[in-house]
């Protein structure tokens, strides 16, 4: 089976899955609620437009501009009617050209202004312009600085698109655009405020996330920590796999679209490979190379996987059984012994090494029941079927187990 077949198969499996059914009443309630909620949102938007119009009139009446006094020791804070926050350094010169819901437009003539922009809806726009640059945002924390005829943009959270001399550039959190160059975020004025706002925004967004494996650090960069291999190889060492940068950071540099070349290193280079490389070879069906490397490094589980890929089933099953404290290995051995080698008895023996309480419990019980049934051990099979139904009443094998348990 090649890669395309594999993808096709797992995709078809996903396509076949159906969501739980909604009753007619549930559906109607959802629809009624949706219409009511949409009407309320439309009303709120109308009120905000009126408030924004009033603010524009007010700001216009204040003289079209806003120049913070050089004598003010503290940064200047302001909030637009739309809820967006602005913080300006002492001496900054900026103008709110438009504060409508559809278009918020601020011109920065001099100094640094930090923006904390609420997420935009639909076709709303938020733009910041300097003499030579346009910055377009979708809901983010960033600062724009105009100093000595040069514009710099620092992004603390989210991303912005800017346009300069006819060229467009995306700048994401943790990066800055400095006079035409994209560099990692350097120190700048209002940095503390920017980081604080980004953290607040991120914490709010992450409030429902319970997975401790995903996190952020100051500056709003998102990362995924290394995937531990201990779950697969508890007794073996190996290099911890480091995830790729998220697409958000990749966007800050030119993304590499070239497909990865298949490694062509000779087998003697196996001594220098990593655990993740061997997994990659197995994934790309380079089983021979994977087998050599796995044996050199005594990575027994990978060795078994490679043998299985080479269809050396007897060796694969025996190798899986050498991996201790790994339910997946024992289960794989059982499946190979039964499905590939037709040996139900030794498959049962392999299953006996799987300790209860593993994530594979349901599958192990299901397979054990089938093996007992195949061996003609009807009574035992029925007992296991009853056990399955008690523990997994809605399990994938529940209907088959029910039929088996009902047989006399």
């Amino acid at each position, binding site marked *: *089976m090649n*890669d395309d077949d*594999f*993808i*096709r*198969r*797992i*995709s*078809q*499996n*996903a*396509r*076949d*899955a*159906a*969501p*739980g*059914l*909604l009753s007619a009443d549930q*559906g*109607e309630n*959802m*629809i*009624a*609620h*949706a*219409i009511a*909620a*949409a009407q309320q*949102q439309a009303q709120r938007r109308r009120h905000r437009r009126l408030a924004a119009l009033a603010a524009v009139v007010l700001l216009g009446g204040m003289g079209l501009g806003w120049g913070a006094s050089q004598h003010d020791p503290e940064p200047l804070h302001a909030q637009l009617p739309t809820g967006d926050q602005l913080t300006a350094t002492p001496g900054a010169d900026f103008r709110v050209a438009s504060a409508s819901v559809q278009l918020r437009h601020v011109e920065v003539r001099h100094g640094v202004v930090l923006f904390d922009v609420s997420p935009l809806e639909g076709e709303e726009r938020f733009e910041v312009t300097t003499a030579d640059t346009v910055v377009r945002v979708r809901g983010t924390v960033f600062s724009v600085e105009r100093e000595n005829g040069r514009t710099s943009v620092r992004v603390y959270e989210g991303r912005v698109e800017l346009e300069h001399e006819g060229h467009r550039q995306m700048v994401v959190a943790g990066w800055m655009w400095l006079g035409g160059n994209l560099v990692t975020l350097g120190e700048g004025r209002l940095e503390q405020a920017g980081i604080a706002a980004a953290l607040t925004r991120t914490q709010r967004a*992450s409030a*429902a*996330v*319970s*997975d401790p494996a995903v996190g952020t650090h100051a500056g709003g960069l998102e990362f*995924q920590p290394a995937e531990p291999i201990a779950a697969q190889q508890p007794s073996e060492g190996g290099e911890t796999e480091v*995830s790729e940068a*998220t*697409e*958000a950071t990749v966007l800050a540099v030119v993304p590499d*679209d070239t497909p*990865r070349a298949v490694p062509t290193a000779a087998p003697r280079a196996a001594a220098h490979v990593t655990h993740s490389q061997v*997994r*990659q070879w*197995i*994934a*790309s069906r380079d089983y021979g190379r994977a087998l050599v490397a796995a044996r050199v490094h005594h990575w027994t589980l990978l060795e078994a996987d490679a043998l*299985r*890929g080479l269809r050396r089933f007897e060796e694969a099953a025996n190798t899986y059984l050498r991996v201790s404290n790994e339910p997946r290995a024992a289960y*794989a051995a059982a499946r190979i012994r039964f499905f590939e080698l037709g040996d139900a008895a030794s498959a049962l023996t392999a299953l006996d090494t799987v300790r209860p309480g593993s994530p594979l419990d*349901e*599958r192990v019980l*299901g*397979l054990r029941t*089938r093996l007992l049934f195949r061996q003609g051990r009807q009574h035992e099979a029925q007992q296991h079927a009853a056990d399955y139904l008690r523990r997994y009443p*809605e*399990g*994938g*094998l529940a209907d*088959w187990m029910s039929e088996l348990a009902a047989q006399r």
Partner: protein
Amino acid sequence: MNGDLVVNLVALRNGDRQELEFVLRELLPRVRRWLLRLLGPRSDLDDATQDALIALAGALPRFKGESKLTTFAHRIVLRTSYRYFRRRKREEKLTLVPAPPDTVDPEARVMGREALRQLYRCLERLPKKRRVAFVLCCIEGLSPAEAAELEGVSGVAMRSRLSHARAEVLRRVGHDFDLGRVGQS
């Protein structure tokens, strides 16, 4: 006429409630299916469905009929799903489409559920846009051009995302032989 679902555009634009209810009722099964494929088995699928319906109820009166209604709706559901990608919730029990019992290996059924969980665990680790590219092109079966139109990006960008997504899925679960057997009778 919009080509797929026959609706009265004039009535929709005039805020006709009955027409709006009719359209939402027709779209509801598709909305749930799209969300299941985008988000995977999750206990908050109903919440996501409700949010998507609210967004649709607000947007449908502005539908001009320039694209298919289902494409318009799919785009809105896609935007809704992005808000849910960061939220990890307890997995919901799934119902696989039932197959005739004499042609489906019972073991394969439980493997199918496990395969689905594994796939979505993998997809949750992908950057959102690559995840969406995989769902739209591999699971929904859209062409990269169709998926690009839904996402509002170029075909080149979509093909790049899809290529990276496929490579990542293969890297993470491609070596799982049991997954590879899923779907075999």
